[in-house]
């Protein structure tokens, strides 16, 4: 029975981005319905031309950065979209705050989404926050 996951990324540290991307890619590729809402610092890595250099919070984050074999979180999010039809939705408020539009974001991102819309779409699923 497919489940519905709503993953909210806000903090933007390496550990949280990696864990959220792992959840999204594995769940989506397993047939679950996955929506990722990107806001605050977590959205900045999806602005075109910016590096995905999320800082480590602690020991494990440093290992994620140092080890060569760790799949980059942006690759995992892309795989969630390509292999499992996940939706990556940028927060419209964060876009306004950064004075940018959807055109400034990576092409795999969906339409800018407000909280009212996100909350009504998310009401019958599980919510994971990073």
């Amino acid at each position, binding site marked *: 029975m497919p489940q519905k996951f709503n993953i909210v990324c806000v903090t933007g540290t390496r550990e949280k981005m990696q864990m959220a991307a792992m959840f999204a*890619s*594995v769940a989506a*590729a397993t*047939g679950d319905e996955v929506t990722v809402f990107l806001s605050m610092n977590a959205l900045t890595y999806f602005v075109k031309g910016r590096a995905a250099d999320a800082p480590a919070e602690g020991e494990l984050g440093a290992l994620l950065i140092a080890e060569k*074999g*760790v*799949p980059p979180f942006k690759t*995992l999010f892309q795989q969630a979209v390509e*292999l499992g039809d996940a939706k990556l939705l940028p927060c419209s408020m964060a876009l306004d705050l950064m004075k940018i539009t959807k055109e400034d974001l990576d092409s795999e991102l969906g339409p800018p989404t407000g909280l009212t819309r996100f909350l009504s779409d998310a009401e019958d699923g599980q919510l994971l926050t990073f």
Partner: protein
Amino acid sequence: MSETKLVDARDTFCPGPLMELITHMKQASVGDTIELLSTDEGSGADVPEWVNKVGHEMLSNEKIEGVWHIKVRKAK
């Protein structure tokens, strides 16, 4: 004619091996076999978990000299 494909995901961490397998599964035909190589301990247990959940067929799963050899047949 079904094929056997070797997917080498050694030296990548979870969920690298699983995502490699899923990527190749999508491209494979029903009846094809994929042999996944992984050095990630967690994947040795978690990949079969995915295979069973999604409904493909686990053919074998053995660790040879530190490398997991996971054989899966695409069932649908």
